[in-house]
């Protein structure tokens, strides 16, 4: 373990000094890619447009307080800016810095999740180690590109650790639901999310140094298909998917959302290492996973009685319902990409 930390420290130092030396050249190099220019530039243009629309609507409102759908929209635009910042950092810097940024995001999301769930006295130390040891460890493994270890650390070792640590807490009430709840949070907000910087380390022949494109492709497809599904739901939606969890979601919206995701993905194929139809199918897969993530998180929030954003809750940051779609889409995209290019762990 000490060796690993020392290694991280060394690579971190090396990469930082290198980065400081020619940060301008580095940024220019990253920007010098048609995929990055069009996708990141396009996303920024769309965001600026969305912000201008929000400002106009806010100015034209009739009531002193913005209405429910307007404040929802403003909140969404704000979270898109955060997302753009995160992805921008990941695209324009390196894996180490991305790992730090996404590690902090994991920390904040897990914190919000644990806050709204009924954590128990007997899990205190389990939770302490989850926050301050398991999250950093997972991202250290990612930063060092240790695929064989990071892909099983939380499903295997953390599973064992959490189960036994909570048992040693000595309080048997609700034991099973308590450990299941902690494991679930770690899987979604740490394990799933940590695959985002891992995408930058995928080694694809003939696509070296352009992995930022994959990340931009993923996030653009997830976020835009979320908007598209919303529009389809409002436009032609009739048959509700799960009215007791989310009354807005319909099968028509989801179906048309997947279809438009295919068009979107295949339209962006030139920026990816895939042929057009594979890019389209990838977009369908990550869109389906992203939809699932949003519905699942709505179910979680509804279970905890905090779905309505109007309820004043000081202990709510609104992070987890912004990263839900991404969290579920990232590992699917990561592994499908590996599968498609037949990247074996030994090949690294």
């Amino acid at each position, binding site marked *: 373990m000490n060796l690993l930390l020392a290694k991280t420290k060394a690579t971190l130092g090396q990469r930082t000094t290198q980065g400081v030396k020619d940060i301008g050249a580095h940024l220019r190099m990253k920007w010098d890619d048609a995929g990055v220019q069009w996708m990141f530039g396009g996303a920024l243009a769309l965001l600026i447009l969305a912000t201008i629309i929000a400002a106009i609507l806010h100015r034209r409102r009739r009531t002193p307080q913005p209405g429910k759908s307007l404040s929802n929209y403003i909140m969404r635009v704000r979270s898109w800016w955060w997302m753009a910042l995160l992805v921008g950092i990941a695209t324009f810097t390196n894996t180490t810095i991305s790992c730090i940024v996404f590690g902090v995001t994991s*920390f904040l999301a897990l*914190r*919000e999740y*644990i*806050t709204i769930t009924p*954590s128990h*006295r007997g899990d*205190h*130390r389990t*939770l*302490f180690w989850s*926050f301050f040891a398991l999250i950093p460890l997972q991202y250290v493994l990612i930063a060092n590109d240790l695929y064989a270890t990071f892909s099983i650390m939380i499903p295997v070792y953390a599973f064992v650790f959490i189960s036994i640590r909570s048992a040693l807490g000595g309080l048997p009430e609700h034991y099973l639901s308590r450990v299941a709840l902690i494991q679930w949070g770690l899987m979604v907000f740490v394990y799933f999310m940590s695959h985002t910087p891992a995408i930058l380390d995928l080694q694809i022949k003939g696509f070296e140094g352009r992995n930022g494109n994959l990340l931009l492709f993923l996030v653009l497809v997830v976020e835009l298909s979320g908007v598209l599904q919303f529009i389809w739901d409002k436009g032609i939606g009739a048959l509700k998917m799960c009215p007791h969890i989310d009354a807005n979601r319909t099968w028509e919206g989801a179906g048309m959302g997947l279809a438009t995701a295919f068009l979107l993905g295949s339209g962006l194929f030139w920026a990816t290492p895939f042929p057009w139809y594979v890019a389209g199918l990838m977009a369908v897969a990550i869109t389906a996973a992203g939809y699932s993530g949003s519905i699942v998180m709505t179910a979680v929030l509804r279970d905890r009685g905090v779905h309505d954003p109007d309820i004043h809750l*000081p*202990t*709510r*940051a609104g992070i987890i319902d912004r990263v839900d779609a991404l969290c579920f889409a990232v590992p699917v995209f990561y592994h499908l990409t590996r599968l498609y290019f037949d990247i074996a762990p030994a090949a690294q």
Partner: protein
Amino acid sequence: MKGQLAFITRLICGVNARWLDGAPREGRCIYFSNHTSHLDSAVLWSTLPAYVRANTRPVAAQEYWNKNWFRRWLARVFNAILVNRVRVTKEHNPIRILRKVLDEGSSLIVFPEGTRSTDGQIRKFKSGLYHLARDMPELDLIPVYTENLTRILPKGEFLPVPVMSSITFGKAIQYHKDERRDDFLARARQAILDMQPS
């Protein structure tokens, strides 16, 4: 040092502060709060603006905070007033010490339950708050309700779990002339209970 400590406390506790009575006040007053964790006074103290914080002193139990160097150091940073809960004599009367501090112009942070509650209930108040309020009826008493801090640092734990917490500063109350002790204490306790989410 104090600024950093306040910042770290706010960061770890993810604390969200609300002032029901508008902005924090500059003048002398007594903050009285429910007590669930050692973090209570730290969080209350760290959410006050720096200029108010400089003149606000938590009241804490001597036998606990004098035990080792770390606790003594913390008590000194927070500028805590250590009072003896166990042996109260005429010469060592905590109320007299607190009155003296108030007379010097400082504000106080007190926990009228006397000890940390572990079951989420707010206990019956001890009479110290009543004596202070009766002696200085012009003084504003500000009820404070903290939430979730016991999950961050429960009784008997040393390492924090950084869930988010909240702190609410309520509308000030004052001692009414000729108010009976139990009535006043029940009213003060109710002011905190009123801030609990239903």
